[in-house]
């Protein structure tokens, strides 16, 4: 099943159909959101295997909890379930520590190449991975709540009120977390700006 495009994607209708118990409708929603969901899970868990487990658990939980969805932002509702699933997984991992897949090497890079939307040249792929690793390492230095806020706003493009719904915090908290997170990221990136693409190298501090 291919991921639905934005034009063919009618979220409201799919949600209603899924609420009536139609699994294919829910799977369409899942295909549309699995990428951001997995990435949010990764930024919370900081481990590909754990993020994988949490994503699957989150989608199963979302399907069972769909009857409780009363409208509003489906994306924010889904991401809140992901966040809670991740916290559950973190608690479980804390009780029963497991070996991460990353301990066996860079398996996730080649985990499922056919899922990639577009084909990249080797150079592009290398640059992309280097930038991703740099930003992920810098993001990992932030506190978890700030990291999540930053990812939801800057990478997933959620509005402040959606972030508030996802993280179950007031709007003022979202703003302050975002402001602090961006300030720290700028500071950290200045330390390694020679590794950044030329157009992103900072000229001075804010």
């Amino acid at each position: 099943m291919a991921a639905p495009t934005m034009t063919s994607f009618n979220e409201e209708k799919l949600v209603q159909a899924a609420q009536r118990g139609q699994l294919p409708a829910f799977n369409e929603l899942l295909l549309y959101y699995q990428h951001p969901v997995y990435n949010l899970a990764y930024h919370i868990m900081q481990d590909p295997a754990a993020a994988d487990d949490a994503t699957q658990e989150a989608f199963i939980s979302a399907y069972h909890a769909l009857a409780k969805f009363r409208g509003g932002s489906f994306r924010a509702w889904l991401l809140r379930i992901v966040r809670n699933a991740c916290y559950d997984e973190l608690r479980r991992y804390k009780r029963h520590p497991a070996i991460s897949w990353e301990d066996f090497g860079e398996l996730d890079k080649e985990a499922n190449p056919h899922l990639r939307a577009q084909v990249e040249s080797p150079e592009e792929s290398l640059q992309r991975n280097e930038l991703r690793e740099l930003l992920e390492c810098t993001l990992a230095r932030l506190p978890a709540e700030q990291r999540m806020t930053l990812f939801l706003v800057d990478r997933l493009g959620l509005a402040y009120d959606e972030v508030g719904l996802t993280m179950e915090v007031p709007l003022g908290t979202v703003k302050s977390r975002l402001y602090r997170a961006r300030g720290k990221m700028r500071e950290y990136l200045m330390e390694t700006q020679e590794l950044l693409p030329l157009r992103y190298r900072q000229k001075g501090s804010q």
Partner: protein
Amino acid sequence: MENKVWNTAELYAYLDGELSPAQEEALRAELETNQSLQEQLAQQRQTVELLQTLPLRETPRNYLLTPEMVRVAKPRPKSRRRRFTLWSLRLATTLSALVFVVALGLQFTPLTAIPQPLAQAPMMMEQENAVEAEKMVEVEKVVEVAVSAESRELPAAEVVAEEAPPVMDSAPLPTVTAATKNGVGGEEEFETPLTLGAEEANPVELGLCSTEEGDAECGGASETVEENLAAVPPAASATEPTSSLPRGEEAPHQVTDATWWLVGALGLMTLMFAAVTWLVARRR
């Protein structure tokens, strides 16, 4: 009109499109004339743009759900047999615990609360029988020794001794005395009074010296008997009253030990029942 000072959070909110239309309009107007504000905003935009380029990770697989994955496991109906087993175990545990508690309570009840004769009667009888049997054995030995000493020289006496009535079944506590009534020759006889008191005599005629044999022989025989009787332990002596035996101290200890074992076994049984009940309940 004085220019508003824009802080970093407001500039970020402007970049995110989160300012109110009025604030947005005011900031745009300010940016047209304020060079330093423009530079500050440019730096912030650069940071945000960089973060927005963060490449997302590829999902390792599709997370499509199947009907099996979302099927809710129905709770298994509880069978009657299982329910009966569980309730039986609970009942057994409760009863066992009750019996255990009662037994434990009785253990700690002082013995004075129970009438003494009732409490000790069976034990005293057993004790008396044991002591009696022991004493009878001793007396028989003494008599045998005396008889054997005499019988070598007085074969006739042996016959008489055999005809003598058995010394058993007389009194609960035998008092053994062996003395010569007539110590100076003539007719001599042994007395083995088996009585509770010294006044109640039950003489046994052995007739060892009823013949015309010498005084010396009879006297020697009686001396031997006296010596042997003297060797009987003090507990068996006639002068010691029956009630002075230290039965009262030993008997309660024997009972306590036995009942403690019983209480311990009850406690263990209760624990076992409780453990099995817990396991069965947990499996459900």
